[in-house]
């Protein structure tokens, strides 16, 4: 049987690979704290590293646009030339044709002098303000306290996993890992506030994340 610390790390990394941030508690090897920044309305992930146009709210397309011929060019274009006209007037523009950064020649000139709206030096980009799925403008931390252990003796009783009622709060879950002979892994996810209706058997790890953060 693997050490609990290794199981905890393995599950932590699996959660991280599925877009969840993990925190740990020094005093307990069997607990991790999972957090996701989500839209308060639709519960989908929020991305603070994504940027939008400060002026109109359009999302960064990560493309250059050639000022000479209007062609969009990949941001990974290493040549620095437009693929169409070979011009070098490439700017990281706002993709919204109705944005003032495109409609007003003076504003366009000033902003493009700094590389375009989405150039970091322009000062006209801002971290995501509105959900990319539903447009809502509030985000919130969704957090789960997760107990982790190997599935022992076919028991779903939290007491068998050293979990007391003092440990449980409204966001507490238990993940039990059941490693089969042929190295397949199954998981049981137990909502510690709804033990009678739990557990949920899961074979694909990403489904654990969906279950944990669906509400």
């Amino acid at each position, binding site marked *: 049987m693997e050490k609990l610390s290794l199981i905890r790390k393995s599950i932590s990394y699996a959660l991280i690979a599925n877009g969840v941030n993990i925190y740990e508690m020094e005093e307990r090897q069997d607990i991790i704290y999972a957090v996701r920044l989500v839209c308060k309305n639709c519960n989908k992930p929020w991305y603070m590293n*994504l940027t939008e146009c400060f*002026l*109109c709210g359009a999302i960064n*397309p990560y493309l250059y646009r050639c000022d000479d011929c209007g062609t969009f060019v990949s941001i990974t274009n290493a040549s620095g030339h437009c693929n169409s006209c070979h011009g070098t007037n490439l700017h990281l523009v706002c*993709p919204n044709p109705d944005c003032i950064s495109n409609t007003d020649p003076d504003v366009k000139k000033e902003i493009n002098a700094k590389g375009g709206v989405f150039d970091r030096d322009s000062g006209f980009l801002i971290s995501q303000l509105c959900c990319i799925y539903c*447009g809502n403008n509030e985000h919130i*931390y969704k*957090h789960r306290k997760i107990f982790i252990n190997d599935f022992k003796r076919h028991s779903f009783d939290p007491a068998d996993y050293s979990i007391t009622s003092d440990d449980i709060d409204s966001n507490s879950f238990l993940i039990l890992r059941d490693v089969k002979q042929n190295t397949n892994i199954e998981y049981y996810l137990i909502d510690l506030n709804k033990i009678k209706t739990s557990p949920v058997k899961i074979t694909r790890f990403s489904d654990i994340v969906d279950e944990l953060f669906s509400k």
Partner: protein
Amino acid sequence: MMFPTNVFRDVLPSDFNKLNKKHVTEDFVAENFKLLGWSVYTPFNDTGIDLIIEKIVKKDGSTPLDKSEQKENNECVKITRFIQIKTRNLVNNIFGFTLRSKDIRTDPRHVFLLYSDKTTSTQQDFLIITIHDLLEFFKSTNHNPFASFTFRKGNAKMNDLKYNTNDGKFYWKDHSWEAYRNFDGLKKISDPKIDLELDTFSKETRSLSNELLNDFSRGQTFPSQDFANKVKTFIMSNRAQRSDPSYIVKLRKRVKEYLKLSITDQAVIDSMDKYTEYILSKSDSDNEE
């Protein structure tokens, strides 16, 4: 008991330098919260949050006497705070730090902990403030550091938080920040109203941040008043619409369709999608875009 207190008795905070102090300062903060009965969670992976702390408090904010009082008392609630720590050595008595737009969260449980690790040779201080209170402070004092070009560039240094050696107090410009210092700051962030009325505080925080973020000051970078007026007028005229989720969804859909029509090279579209996916996968990482 002092808060903070030097929990690592074998070494002084002042023994560290800028290059080797990151880990110890975050641990110092964590251990100080633990001493006061908070449960503390530290990051396993690189994120924008340095600590998560939780505690059970009574609805009036006071700490229950013991576990049996917690259980019996329906008036107890578990409070959670998401802490971003900034540690600085005062330079000319100034606590200088940088805020970027990605630091401005709408969850009212998000807290900034400004740790002055050498206020004096023997004294450390925590200045602790929720995002809601920080935004409220800027609004009420008519000071908006988020309107500047440098803020959106990501390198706006806040240099207004100062320690006055005459009276031994912290000030932001002329405004006292003693209400956010050490135990006083801790008391403010421990208010369970934030958790009990999460929806209300979240809306208020977003409203405050909208007001401060959707503003433009030309500074020295854009000297043209005409330019500034055009930009400001455009932003103001859009502000109400941008608070409407359906407007944002329609706008972004329109832009997507425009890009599909404008880009004939599939490789460019693939590049756009791939790079966007890469940025989304960085999720809440503290790394820059």
